[in-house]
């Protein structure tokens, strides 16, 4: 019900808000406001979750901080709006948040008919299944007739139905909105299976399971889930800023620049590094930012590898396909020049 109220409120906001896009660019509006408003997950370990002191932590959160560093030269000029899967697009469409960085899968429908633009991929994910070890299930192909716990309104729900249809199997979904409640149902044995992105399964098993060893993640990955930050249609400059902030994180790792080394490497003779830190060229100015935007991003937030190691590695995540292309992964930034 709360969601409905929020969705209704957001719809109303969409109705009442005069068209601001024409009057002022997003960048100017964000600068005037003094902070970036960023939509994040309500709590997913490793991606966005408040720590014991109420500080938001995770790779999605760090992307928001990186955008703030690029725009303001200050990674703390960001405010977070925790959003459920169902609120997120309305919140972005209605202008409640400037960037949506909330483990959101890039799909054609979302990119087109929802009026959104995906600014790249921060984590290549895929949907998987987790089952209690004592069921003795070894493969997702053995799940015929199973009861599956799933959260509503996500690509997860569609992939799940597709996979069982494609394999001629049946299942019973138990669809519960709040993560807490759906996990309670799974851990109480209401369902045989819990399904979400593998990253979510790993995080949940590490942080929520009474005993992590009692649950196994099945080997099948049934979908492609490229997760990335999203902006709304209508302001290409803001889209570019978010997109190239993400690329700067990847490029920094490829160039060997980290938050600890970038200051001393700033004077390196390597022309790529010179362009990156803004010593030569006008990349920052072309984006409408300070020329040291990428330098600030790396100095204040770190490179992609640092962010991954700080947030995901402790939970048991493997770099896998999220490694740089030079190390056999999919992470590849176009040249910053």
């Amino acid at each position: 019900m709360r969601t409905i109220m929020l969705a209704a409120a957001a719809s109303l906001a969409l109705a009442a808000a005069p068209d601001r896009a024409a009057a002022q660019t997003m960048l100017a509006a964000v600068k005037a406001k003094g902070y970036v408003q960023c939509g994040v997950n309500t709590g997913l370990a490793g991606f966005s979750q408040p720590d014991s002191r109420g500080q938001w932590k995770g790779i999605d959160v760090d992307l928001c901080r990186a955008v703030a560093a690029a725009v303001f030269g200050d990674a703390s000029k960001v405010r977070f709006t925790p959003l459920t899967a169902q609120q997120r697009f309305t919140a972005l469409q209605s202008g409640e948040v400037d960037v949506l960085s909330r483990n959101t899968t890039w799909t054609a429908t979302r990119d087109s008919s929802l009026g959104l633009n995906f600014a790249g991929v921060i984590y290549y994910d895929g949907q998987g299944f987790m089952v209690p070890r004592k069921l003795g299930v070894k493969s997702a192909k053995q799940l015929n007739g199973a009861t599956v716990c799933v959260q509503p309104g996500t690509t997860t729900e569609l992939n799940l139905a597709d996979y069982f249809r494609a394999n001629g199997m049946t299942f019973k979904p138990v669809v519960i909105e709040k993560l807490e409640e759906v996990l309670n149902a799974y851990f109480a044995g209401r369902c045989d299976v819990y399904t979400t992105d593998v990253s979510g399964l790993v995080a949940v098993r590490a942080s929520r399971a009474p005993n992590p060893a009692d649950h196994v993640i099945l080997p099948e990955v049934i979908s492609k889930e490229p997760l990335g930050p999203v902006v709304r249609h209508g302001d290409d400059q803001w889209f570019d800023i978010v997109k190239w902030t993400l690329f700067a994180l990847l490029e920094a790792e490829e160039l060997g620049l980290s938050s600890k080394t970038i200051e001393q490497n700033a004077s390196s003779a390597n022309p790529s590094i010179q362009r990156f830190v803004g010593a030569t060229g006008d990349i920052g100015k072309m984006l409408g930012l300070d020329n040291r935007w990428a330098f600030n991003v790396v100095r204040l937030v770190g490179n992609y590898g640092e962010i991954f190691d700080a947030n995901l590695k402790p939970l048991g995540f493997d770099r896998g396909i999220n490694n740089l292309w030079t190390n056999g992964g999919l992470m590849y930034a176009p040249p910053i020049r």
Partner: protein
Amino acid sequence: MRRRSGSAGVGGGAASRVRLSTGDPRLRALAYQAAALAAVIFVGWYLISNTLANLEARRIASGLGFLGREAGFAIGETSLVPYSAADTYLRAIVVGLANTFRVALIGIVAATVLGTLVGLARLSRNWLVAKLAAGYVEFVRNVPLLVQLFFWYAVITENLPVPREAVEPLPGVFLVNRGIFFPVPAWSAVHGWMLAAFAGGVFAAVAYAWWARRRQARTGRRPPVLAGAAALLLLPPAIVWLAGGAPARLSVPELAGFNFAGGAHLSPEFAALAAGLIVYTASFIAEIVRAGVLSVHHGQFEAASALGLRRGLALRLVVLPQALRAIVPPITSQYLNLTKNSSLAVAIGYPDLVSIANTTINQTGQAIEGIAIIMAVYLTISLAISALMNWYNARIALTER
């Protein structure tokens, strides 16, 4: 405003020879109402046109075309309307609507029965019964419904065992955290004829009751209505059953793979939602019933007992018919509340209308259309219940003197 009424005053004054001025209260009232209506229309127009303009500017698709597309997601409870993931969004929403009706209908009937019993119990002369009923009402109606739903859901899913360790209180009945499984007669054509015979029996029983009342009025002697009606209701289906060869095969639930298959089944989500709605709404209905009974003057009780009616009969024949007039209007509100409260189902995973529409909104991004559908459906259901109850209220109000 001034100009409006001023100009109207000139025209009106000439015609009726009554001097109309801005001081005329009738004219002023008319002008204020016109202004209020204009303001409402303007706000509505502004919201709609601005929404359309903003949707257009952001290139967000709008319209109801999405209803014909394939939904692609599965639904847990499709006992009333067959559905698969290959069906359309429209059909998915119809499944949700059917699930809402299912829980609302069962909830309204059961809450009325439970609420009436508790309300009368609270008036009981037995101290323990009255205090227990009072405690039930005060406890249940002061705890938020959402919390109660979580409580019922947790009771069912946490306390009952997994299918492989099922509890079997009666042969063929299994209690597990996937719900209650129980045997039902395997369907055969004879059952259809039995239903028809039962329907015929209902008509016969109503006619018999009418005849019995006429006879009582004429002769003062009352034929045995209860026994007669019961015979008329039960005998025809029994005869059809025997004539059809007495099919007695049962569909018994059996553990197959992950879960029980066969028989009939109530899911934990439905059970928790129905229990929560019934227990919660019954506490309000109990108070309404109690207030209704107390609104009937005590003299009516005394007069009834002077005629030799026992307390139960006095309650049923004299007091409740008069109390109904006070009970029906507020109880209508409770029925509406129960129906609308069923939308809390999404919290415990029962696929009602709101849950399905929510998913649809997120798959398609058509938030405004989705919410409009939800609002239109609840408005229709609520107005239908109101109309029905108002008709019933008008019927019983005719006896008023």
